[in-house]
């Protein structure tokens, strides 16, 4: 195991994930053998430049790749959904940090291998996702309340029926209504006098649940907000709606794909804080995808740096930022202005991300790396531990098979 | 998505020669796009066959004298089915040879479409350009006229004009020309306005280019694309509308025109004589279909955004 040995259960482990895209010029290896774990209750930051494969990696958890041309070419994503805590049986204890639930290995499934119907049950319930641009990720023709309601209809039918005060064995049109699986003629059935009253109660229960979910995100007047359309809301409000929708079913894992990139800086801080708060209260694991190092530093427990379809460095936030080992990580950090950066010393990494069509067996950073040697061009480095919790894929710390190794002391470029 | 072709005011200072090469390369790309779309290729093949038929009509079938565009009447062979010697596709109630009508009808249709599309394109382009370039009240008045013309359904408008002028094929051509120029005026005006806002036209103005020069070299070549697509689609549409007017009865009787022939054949269908309407109608369909296929293909090839739609 790469890093699971370092305490705590894992909620998901990605192993050798490969996602390819068919293009006119050949097969693009967008994600090329990525492995990492997400521990229970942690926030893992996934950073990298645009086009390095971080979004595709995040979407693989929900199998949301455009098919075709996206192809899951190999690997696995094991997911351990939470179960009732074994030591306290749900009452809340120290091991489960008071939530009564805990990741459990015995319900482990490979997200890439399960039938699509099972995948669908996990989506939005156990694993949820927040998208980059809330203006585009909300349906413009539906009120936001109705969009959040869909999550409950899909995954919380029984609770909904109980909350509406209907018997648990309710069947027929009302149950189909409460699970969003209408059949032809249901519209007519639901308008019958007795049934209509039942439907009204389900609708009221639904409104209560939606308002509750919205209230979690600290919006003023959730009941009123439900009836609004996305275009009537500000960017920050829309993202709050997205967050309410994603956290509605209390997922075990949240994929946040650059959730603040489309927002103003002032709004960004508040949204970030909101995600952090909700995450800590519920002990939800978060995979936080971003290109912004300083932002990831603020929010993550651990950081994984991605480059050209590979993870090149992974470790605790403290370790990676105090002692970045991979030249790419160093380059990224040098490109971020900090308080201690002297004026005019801001460095950019030269070159751009290489095209990932049929890559050769060499370090992907060749050509941009100031320290590269012949060994880097002939051997493909893989992640190896330099401390129990810090892994790097570079010959600087682990000599290439030929024994040759680059050094930070002499730049070859 | 603004498409910036050549521009002499480029930082590199493109010469006329490179501009020409850029345009040739683009043209080559468009042709490649056309050739890779099977539907377009089918359309092009049909068009080629139709054109060949129209051009070689006098050698395929001896022209009727004195007027080759009048159907020859063989009163000794009335209502003959297809396969009759001398009348491969049969004859009409009046002894007209259906094959003659089909072949010489392609000439009539070609005339109709070339004359209507040619004249509307020229008139529309001029009026649209003037409206866009001059602006102000000239633009306002011209565009209100265009709006009024677009308010009357095409076929009904053309029908009314042709009816007022009296039944003749020439009047159908005239009526269609009066109705259809507005489309080009609209396209052209929109193009001029859009391109006028582009930086490189401003730049051309700054370096002291004359208005006419800017128009001829920077605006007109860019507007060629949408006008060509519209013209291709219209080549088919015009024949469709023209044949409809002929069918209603706005052509001279007895002219070798597909719509007239369908109308003439209609009387016989109750007695089982299906051929006199079927073959000429099929020609109208193929004509319109081929130009629609090529027009659509052209639009896709010229607009990278619609790729794969």
């Amino acid at each position, binding site marked *: 195991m790469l890093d699971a040995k370092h305490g705590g259960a894992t909620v998901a482990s990605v192993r050798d994930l490969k996602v390819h895209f068919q293009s006119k010029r050949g097969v693009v290896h967008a994600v090329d053998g990525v492995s990492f774990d997400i521990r229970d209750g942690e926030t893992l930051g996934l950073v990298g430049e645009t086009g390095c494969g971080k979004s595709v990696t995040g979407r693989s958890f929900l199998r949301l790749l455009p098919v075709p041309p996206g192809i899951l070419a190999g690997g696995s994503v094991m997911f351990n959904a939470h179960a009732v805590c074994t030591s306290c049986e749900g009452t809340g204890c120290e091991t489960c940090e008071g939530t009564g639930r805990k990741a459990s290995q015995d319900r482990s499934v490979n997200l890439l291998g399960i039938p699509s119907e099972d995948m669908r049950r996990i989506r939005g319930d156990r694993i949820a996702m927040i998208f980059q641009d809330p203006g585009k990720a909300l349906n413009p023709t*539906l009120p936001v309340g109705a969009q959040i309601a*869909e999550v409950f209809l899909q995954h919380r039918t029984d609770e909904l029926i109980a909350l509406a005060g209907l018997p648990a064995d309710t069947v027929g049109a009302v149950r189909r209504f409460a699970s969003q699986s209408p059949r032809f003629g249901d519209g007519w059935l639901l308008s019958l006098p007795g049934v209509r009253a039942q439907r009204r109660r389900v609708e009221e229960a639904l409104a209560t649940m939606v308002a509750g979910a919205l209230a979690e995100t600290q919006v003023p007047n959730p009941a009123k907000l439900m009836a609004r359309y996305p275009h009537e809301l500000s960017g920050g409000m829309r993202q709050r709606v997205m967050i309410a929708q994603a956290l509605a079913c209390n997922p075990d894992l949240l994929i946040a794909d650059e959730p603040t990139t489309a927002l103003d800086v002032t709004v960004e801080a508040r949204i970030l804080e909101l995600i952090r708060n909700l995450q800590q209260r519920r002990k939800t694991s978060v995979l936080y995808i971003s290109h912004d190092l300083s932002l990831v530093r603020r929010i993550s427990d651990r950081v994984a740096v991605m480059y050209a379809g590979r993870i090149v460095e992974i470790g605790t936030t403290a370790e990676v930022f105090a002692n970045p080992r991979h030249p790419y990580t160093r380059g990224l950090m040098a490109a971020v202005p900090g308080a201690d950066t002297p004026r005019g010393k801001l460095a950019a990494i030269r070159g751009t991300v290489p095209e990932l069509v049929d890559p050769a067996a060499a370090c992907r950073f060749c050509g941009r790396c100031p320290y590269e040697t012949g060994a880097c061009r002939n051997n493909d480095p893989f992640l190896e531990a330099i401390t129990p919790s810090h892994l790097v894929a570079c010959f600087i710390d682990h000599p290439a098979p030929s024994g040759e190794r680059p050094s930070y002391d002499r730049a070859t470029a | 998505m603004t498409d910036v072709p050549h521009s002499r005011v480029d930082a590199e200072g493109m010469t006329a020669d490179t501009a020409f090469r850029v345009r040739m390369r683009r043209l080559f790309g468009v042709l490649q796009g056309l050739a890779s779309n099977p539907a377009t290729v089918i359309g092009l093949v049909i068009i080629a066959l139709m054109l060949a038929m129209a051009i070689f009509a006098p050698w395929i079938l001896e022209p009727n004298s004195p007027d080759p565009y009048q159907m020859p009447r063989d009163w000794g062979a009335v209502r003959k089915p297809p396969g009759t010697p001398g009348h491969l596709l049969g004859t009409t109630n009046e002894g007209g040879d259906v094959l003659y009508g089909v072949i010489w009808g392609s000439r009539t249709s070609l005339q109709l479409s070339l004359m209507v599309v040619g004249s509307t394109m020229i008139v529309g382009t001029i009026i649209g350009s003037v409206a866009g370039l001059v602006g102000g009240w000239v633009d306002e008045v011209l565009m209100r006229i265009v709006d009024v013309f677009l308010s009357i359904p095409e076929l009904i408008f053309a029908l009314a004009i042709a009816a*007022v002028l009296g039944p003749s094929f020439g009047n159908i051509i005239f009526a269609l020309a009066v109705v259809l120029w507005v489309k080009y005026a609209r396209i052209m005006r929109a193009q001029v306005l859009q391109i006028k806002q582009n930086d490189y036209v401003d730049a051309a103005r700054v370096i002291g280019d004359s208005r006419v020069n800017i128009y001829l070299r920077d605006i007109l070549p860019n507007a060629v694309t949408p006008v060509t697509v519209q013209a291709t689609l219209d080549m088919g549409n015009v024949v469709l509308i023209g044949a409809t007017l002929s069918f209603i009865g706005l052509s001279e009787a007895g002219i070798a025109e597909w719509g007239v022939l369908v109308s003439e054949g209609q009387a016989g269908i109750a007695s089982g004589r299906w051929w006199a309407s079927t073959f000429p109608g099929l020609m109208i*369909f193929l004509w319109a279909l081929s130009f629609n296929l090529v027009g659509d293909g052209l639009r896709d090839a010229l607009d990278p955004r619609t790729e794969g739609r």
Partner: protein
Amino acid sequence: MQLRDYILRRLMVLPVLIIGVSIVVFTLTRVGGSPIGIYLSHEMTPDEVAEIEARFNLDKPVWVQYLYWIRGIAMGDFGWSGVAAAPVADVFPLKLAATMELALASGLVALLLGIALGTYAGARRNRLPDHVTRIVAVSGASLPQFWFGILLLIIFWAQIGIAPIGRSDATIFASIAHPTGLYTVDAILAGSPAAFWDAIWHLVLPSVTLGYGATAIIARMMRSALVEELQQDYVDAARAKGLAERIVLKRHARRNALVPTVTVIGLTFGFLLQGTITVEIIFRWPGLGRWMADSVLRGDQATLMTYVLFTSVLFLVVNLIVDLVYANLDRRVTLGK
């Protein structure tokens, strides 16, 4: 710009366009021979002709003539129809009912069929149903309706002999009253299943002929709109919520794809209106279109011009309504320029 301003501006432009159309129509009446041609005969003396001209204000300047003409129309005087041997205004409603029944039946079927077909194709992009729909769409735009109708008649009327021609069976027609002029509605009002069946049976072939092209227009638009919508983020977001693909398609993608599809309804309406002319000729349908065609051939100018004016105004109003509905539906639309 606000929606209210947009509506106001559109409503203000409408009368301008209608006046423009009326000027065009008036010009046409003066171009093609004398507007009083049907009242004149060879035996009249120049004095008598002058007297008639004076009665119809033809001795006044053209713009005064136009005003008299407009005043007549405003008071419901559309002239005398030589073809119908009655005032145009008297015959018009009856013929209109026949045409509207045909156009509405075709339009309704085309709308439902076009949306279904477009959705089906768009959701299965580049697969067999998609290719079939594309063929339908392209052929629908190229098909001469008069020829298509005749082909249907050759097969179902002349050869097989199951399809009727005309608008209703004579004895059935006489058996019920026709208060609305829409025979299907009249049959329902009279409670006569036989008459209803007869009306539907006569509607089938003309509707298919007329509706094919309209279906093609709508299906084509629906398909490309759906393909566009399926690439949007909110579709993936809906999937990420765990919704079934069926719900994602119907409740999310299709709902949004319907918005741009609304814009082709005006176009479709114009298409149907024009199509009624030839379809009514072929199927002996006693509506406006056939009356119009007869009038054209017999130089009945009053009918012709009333028809042009009426259809244009109808076309304008329908397009206005479509635009307003669209602007209201799609709140993302930037109004105005």
